Each structure stands twice: as structure tokens, then as C-alpha cells.
């Protein structure tokens, strides 16, 4: 009977919470920040989660930064840098007078130790290692000069070095704690020091009062002394936690709740577009019936993205047109307007592929085989709702959709490895289109379209070797065109993170990658001002 109570209790709990309380200010200069995922680990050098970067961006400095306004690179722990003619050697001149939270002075040795840790195969880095590309090694020239060597040109290196995954850690702390223990005792040079991490419960940071070496766009204000991050994996609880004062900041508010909160003067909403990939379904080119280009294109034409965005995303997002969101570097604007919904076109394509409804069951068939596609559906990002709409939209042109829900990322990967799917919802974030490589290069680790095209391989590889923005832009434009001509994916919406905060919170800004807040300058004023 206990399960009965658990199952039904939410009605009453939600009912009680529905009584709007005005957000109360914490007495201390302290805020509670709601995270939306519980990462399996929060070591930026080792783990891959995007969520970990939200707290840890405050703990670490990187060699360089990207200015959130201009997106240009700007000085961080490296005050200047230069790239050799052959593109293989990057020389960094480091800032002097920087001190880690544990008192260790910052020198070239700290950069070297961090690189050693990331590239040590025993540590099994899931993200940082890959961000280094064709990394070959480093040379410490003197205490404040270090060179990084590559085996071939790799222009996304600077972009990688400006992300928290390559944040510089204290060599003393790295020596003191083992690979697995370090995530609980992280030491950087950032505006906040790491206090504690209790998995599944909280991450606590406290202000680093010695901080004087932030990038130019960090403001000087020190409005907050302490930040406690808590996990709100259940999307239904997020707006409640924010409106009843449990948290002062909350990430990823569900669009429907955000719509309700727009009428609440105690709450401010911050919509941040996230560069990278849109919410997309990768289409398997190796399995019937999506091995046929005409079928893949028909599915794109049969999709009413406006209806999805209007209903599920409450118009907080815009339509996505290709493998990159519109605010990603080198987005190909030519793709805007392609594959606009056109049922007639979809039906023509299906008929030209030889499909008819020979048994009059409303589902098209060919040679006795029904036109049925299977979609792998993870639980995040409103994918279950989107998939149900696709199922209904495609039913009207005679396509049967089987939905295959998976509870976790590991389960998703397992299903993908089995090869028994036609579409799978998966996407990552980033500013540099180099993220396309793992998805579309022959043999790429997430090439889940199972596609191989030597021209596409050449374009994507060449684009990482080129430095000139105009050249890269043209290479990526061609690559995006090929990807969409071959209908390797169904883009749905550009990702927008709807963050909520109490309205008294000032200077609530995000970095160039959109996902990571800049909490250094944030301050808490009187609510409603």
C-alpha cells in the first residue's frame, strides 16, 4: 500500500505548492543554484557532462577565454600567445602573480601537470583529451612560458583551451589526491573556491577574495559569498522550487512552466540560446527503410516543426534547419527554409520509392514490408513528447512509428550499438563546428547516421586544419549542405536554455558557450528592483 501513497501523493504535494509564495531573499549573501542533471562525476579533466561546467567554470581559469559579446579570444591565465607558421606550435606567455586556492603559485609547471593528467591514458579522459585533437606534447620554456606541440594543424585548439574541461588545476592538489578522489577536492585559480561535493546532494563554492586576474569581461563586483548547487533532475519540480524560494537560480525550466512564470514579477527569466547542435534526430542510413534517401527526405518534409515548437516549446525556440544551431560559428544560412513542411512532396517521394498502401491499412508498404521506422527516445530534452508528435504527424502520410524509450545515456548507446533503429535523438553543444566531426566523419564515435562520404570527410578534416575564418566558413558551409542533401538528420529546434532567477538577482550572465554562467559579478539586490 505504500506505493499507493507514493503514486498519489504528488497530487497533494503539487497542489500545496501551487499556492504562489513570494520569493524570499536569503539573509546571507548566499544563493542556491538549481542544476538539472546529476553528473556521474564532476572532474572536468575526466568527465564529459555539460552540467559540471556550471559550478566548475567558477573554480577554474583557462589559458584563454572567449569574450561573450564578440566571441573573440581574450587573455586568461595566458596573457599573450602566438602560433608558429606551420600551425604546429602554440606558445603561451603566462600571467604572473596568480595563486591557486591552496596557495600554490601558478607557473608553467601547473599547465604541464594539467596536460599530463588529461593525456595520461590511465585516467580515461572522456572529453578533455579529445578536445586537444592531434596533441603531441609540450615544452616548458621557463616559469612563465609554455609551448604546446601538435602533430598536424588543428585550429579548434584555442577554442578547446578556453573551456573549463581544460581548466588549470593546482599541481599540489593533483599530487595529493588520486584520480578518483580529486573531484572532491578540486583546486583552481578561479573566482570561487571549491568547498565540498556530496554526490546526489550538493556542490558548495565560496568566494576567492584574492581573485585579481579574471578576463576583461569579468566585472569587479563581489556580490555573493557562497553558492550552493543542488540537483533538480525532475523537471516538474523546478519552477516550484524557484517560486517558493528554495532556490534563487534554476536552469532548464520546462517551457510550459516558463510560460506561467512570465506573469510572476518576483521571477526573471533568462533565455540563453546554446550554440552547437539543435535538438535533432540522427537518421540511420544503413537500415530499412531509412537506407533510402527518398524515405529520409520524405520524413523531413512530413514534419511540422512549427507545431512542435508552438506546443511543446511554447515558442521559446526557433526552428532548426541543419546540423548546427543558427548561433554556432559558421552556420550555413543557405539551409534556412529547406525541408519546410510539405506533405504533398513527402507523398510524392514515397510513391516514387515504390510505396503503396496495397492492403488498405493506412500504412504504406513495399513488397509485403510495411513502412515502419523505429525511434530511440531518451527521456531528456522533451524528446518523448516530440517523438509522440512525430509519430502522429508521420501516421498521416502512411508511416508507422515505433517508439523505443531508453531511460539513460548508457541504455541509449546500447540500443544504438545494436543497430536496430531508424532514428535516434542525440546532440551536443559547442561553439566551434569541429563537433560535427565525431558525428559525420567515417567511423566517428557518434556517427549514428552510419554514413560515409569521402568528400564530407575531406571537408570536415580540412576545416580543422585551416585557420582563416573565411576558408573554414566555406568548408563548413559545404559540409552542412552535403549533410542535409543526404538527409542524415531531422533538425527540430535550436536549443534555448530557459534559466529562471529571483528578480532581485543582478548581473546574471552567461559565457560564450551559453551553458555556463558567469557568477563572479552576480549580486542580490532587493526583490523586484
Amino acid at each position, binding site marked *: *500500500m505504500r*506505493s*499507493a501513497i*507514493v*503514486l*498519489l501523493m*504528488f*497530487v497533494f504535494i*503539487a*497542489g500545496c505548492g*501551487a499556492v504562489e509564495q513570494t520569493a524570499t531573499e536569503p539573509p546571507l549573501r548566499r544563493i542556491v543554484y538549481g542544476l538539472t542533471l546529476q553528473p556521474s562525476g564532476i572532474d572536468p579533466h575526466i568527465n564529459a557532462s555539460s552540467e559540471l561546467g556550471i559550478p566548475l567554470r567558477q573554480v577554474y581559469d583557462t589559458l584563454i577565454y572567449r569574450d561573450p559579446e564578440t566571441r573573440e579570444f581574450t587573455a586568461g591565465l595566458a596573457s599573450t600567445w602566438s602560433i608558429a607558421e606551420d600551425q604546429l606550435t602554440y606558445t603561451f606567455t603566462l600571467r604572473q602573480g596568480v595563486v591557486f586556492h591552496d596557495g600554490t603559485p601558478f607557473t608553467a609547471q601547473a599547465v604541464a601537470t594539467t596536460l599530463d593528467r588529461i593525456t595520461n591514458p590511465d585516467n580515461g579522459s572522456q572529453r578533455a583529451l579529445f578536445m586537444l585533437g592531434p596533441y603531441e606534447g609540450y615544452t616548458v620554456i621557463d616559469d612563465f612560458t609554455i609551448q604546446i606541440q601538435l602533430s598536424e594543424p588543428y585550429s579548434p585548439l584555442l577554442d578547446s583551451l578556453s573551456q573549463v574541461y581544460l581548466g588549470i588545476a593546482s599541481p599540489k592538489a593533483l599530487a595529493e589526491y588520486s584520480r578518483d578522489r580529486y573531484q572532491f577536492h578540486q583546486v583552481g585559480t578561479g573566482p570561487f573556491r571549491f568547498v565540498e561535493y556530496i554526490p546526489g546532494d550538493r556542490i558548495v563554492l565560496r568566494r576567492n577574495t584574492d581573485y585579481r586576474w579574471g578576463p576583461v569581461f569579468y566585472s569587479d563586483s563581489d556580490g555573493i559569498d557562497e553558492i550552493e548547487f543542488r540537483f533538480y533532475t525532475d*523537471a*516538474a519540480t523546478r*519552477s*516550484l522550487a524557484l517560486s517558493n524560494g528554495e532556490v534563487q537560480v534554476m536552469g532548464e525550466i*520546462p517551457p*510550459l*512552466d516558463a*510560460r*506561467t512564470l512570465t506573469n510572476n514579477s518576483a521571477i526573471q527569466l533568462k533565455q540563453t540560446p546554446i550554440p552547437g547542435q539543435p535538438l535533432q534526430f540522427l537518421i540511420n542510413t544503413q537500415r530499412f527503410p531509412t537506407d533510402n534517401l527518398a524515405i529520409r527526405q520524405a520524413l523531413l518534409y512530413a514534419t511540422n516543426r512549427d*507545431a*512542435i515548437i*508552438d*506546443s*511543446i516549446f511554447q515558442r521559446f525556440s526557433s526552428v532548426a534547419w541543419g546540423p548546427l544551431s543558427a548561433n554556432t560559428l559558421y552556420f550555413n544560412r543557405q539551409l534556412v527554409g529547406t525541408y519546410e513542411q510539405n506533405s504533398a512532396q513527402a507523398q510524392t517521394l514515397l510513391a516514387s520509392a515504390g510505396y503503396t498502401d496495397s492492403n488498405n491499412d493506412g500504412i504504406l508498404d513495399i513488397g509485403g514490408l510495411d513502412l515502419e521506422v523505429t525511434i530511440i*527516445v531518451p*527521456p531528456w530534452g522533451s524528446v*518523448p*513528447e516530440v*517523438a*509522440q*508528435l512525430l*509519430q*502522429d*504527424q508521420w501516421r498521416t502520410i502512411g508511416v508507422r512509428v*515505433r*517508439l523505443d*524509450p531508453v*531511460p539513460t545515456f548508457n541504455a541509449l548507446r546500447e540500443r544504438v550499438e545494436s543497430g536496430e533503429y531508424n532514428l535516434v535523438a542525440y546532440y551536443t553543444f559547442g561553439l566551434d563546428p569541429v563537433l560535427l566531426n565525431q558525428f559525420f566523419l567515417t567511423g566517428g564515435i557518434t556517427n549514428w547516421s552510419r554514413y560515409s562520404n569521402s568528400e564530407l570527410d575531406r571537408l570536415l578534416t580540412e576545416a580543422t586544419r585551416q585557420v582563416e575564418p573565411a576558408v573554414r566558413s566555406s568548408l563548413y558551409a559545404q559540409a552542412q549542405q552535403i549533410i542535409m542533401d543526404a538527409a542524415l538528420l531531422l533538425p527540430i529546434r535550436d536549443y534555448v536554455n530557459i534559466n529562471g532567477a529571483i528578480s532581485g538577482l543582478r548581473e546574471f550572465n552567461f559565457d560564450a558557450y551559453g551553458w555556463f554562467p558567469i557568477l563572479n559579478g552576480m549580486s542580490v539586490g532587493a526583490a523586484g528592483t
Partner: protein
Amino acid sequence: MWRLLLIGVLIICLAWAAPYDPLKTNTSNQLQAPSAAHPFGTDILGRDVLSRFLHGGQQTLLSASAAALIAIIPSTGLAFVAAGDTRLQRIQLLILQALLAIPNLLLALVILTVLGRSEVSATVAVGLGQIPVFTLVIRAAILGVQSEGYIESARAAGANPLWLATRHVFPNLIPTLATYGAVTFSYCLMNSAALNFLGMGGELGKPEWGVMLAEGRAVFRAAPWVALPPGIAITALIWSINRWAVAQRGFR
């Protein structure tokens, strides 16, 4: 009892009277409050909640009934088989008590992991989860009947054990089977709704009361009418069944 059964059959049959296709989405008509066209309103995808509620009721009640039968029939058999042999009885008791230590929803989740996710395996998992308790209840009832004087005398008169079981023991068990069977049905209803609520049931989006609760929970502040009908229905059914069972023989 008959009234409850009638309500059950009615819910199952009413699915055919649903005004709309429970899967038909209409995004321009999302989250409509109850009205004449949609007496229970619409959900986030614009589907008619009343139609989903009726189809979901059929699905939920049928799978709970199937699960209850999966629990009741083998359990009764097990209890009778063991009743004939004290050594077998002791081994059975040991196993059942070990299984009893595991909460039955957890047991169902374990079975579901082995069988793989589907409507049928969810039903089987819920049913199997009830077997330990049900067997023990029937076993205790059999022991009670066996200690009656007339059984002793029949046995002394050299009655065939099979004849004893069918003619004397089984008829005396019918009240227990009926009341505890009804209670088992309510547990099955609860657990199968719970599994569906957790997303461990049948196909995504297919109407079921537990599924509807989960869908309604996500939009509860904007549209409470999605979660209320299945929530009230589950509560009311289980409450009525248990009240009936209590009235039968001061159960518990």
C-alpha cells in the same frame, strides 16, 4: 461485490464509446480546459483526455486483472501441492519468506529487467510479484481447514487426499480466495499503474492510467485536469475494493 464487478466491466466497455481517437494529437488545441467538446479537457499534445481516460481504464483494468490471475492461480496450486507433504511445505515456506523480504514493486522491477520492457512483461512482473504473499495466505487458510474435526475424521476414515482437497478443503477456501483475490487485484492495479507511471510499461504514449498520471504531473500547474481523472479513479477503485474486502470478514 457485483456492483464493483459491474463498474469494472463498464469501464472496460466504455473505451468503445470514447468520443475521439486517444492518440490523435492536435497541437493548436493543447491544454484546453474541460468544455462541452472535451469534457475532461485536452493534454499538452492536444489529445482528448476523456478518450485517453476511457482507453487507459480499459488497458489498466485488463492488465491488472490478468496480473491478478497470474498471481492467484499458481499460488493456489502451490499451496495445495505443498499441503500434502510437510517437507515440501517447509522448503516452500523458506523460499516464500525469503521472497517476501523483497518489496513486491522492487521484485516486479527486477523481473521486468530480465523480461525486457513491454506491456505483457509488465503484467507478468506485477502478477509474479504477488505470488509469495498470496501463497502464504492460502497456505494458512488450508492449515486452518485441515485442523477442523471433520477433516480429521474423514482422514481417519481413510478418505483419498485428492477427494479431501476438492470436496472439503477447497470449498471452504472460496471466501478467502474471493476477499484476498480482490485485495490482490487492487495491489496489482496499484503496482501496474506505478510501473507505467515510472515509464516501465507498454508503448510510449499509449493511454494507461499510470502513464496519464506521469503526463499530468508534468503539466499539473497549468492543466490539473490531465492528472485528476486517472488519479481519482485509481484511488476510488482501490478504496472501494479494500472497503468491500474489510466488510467481508473483518479482514485485517
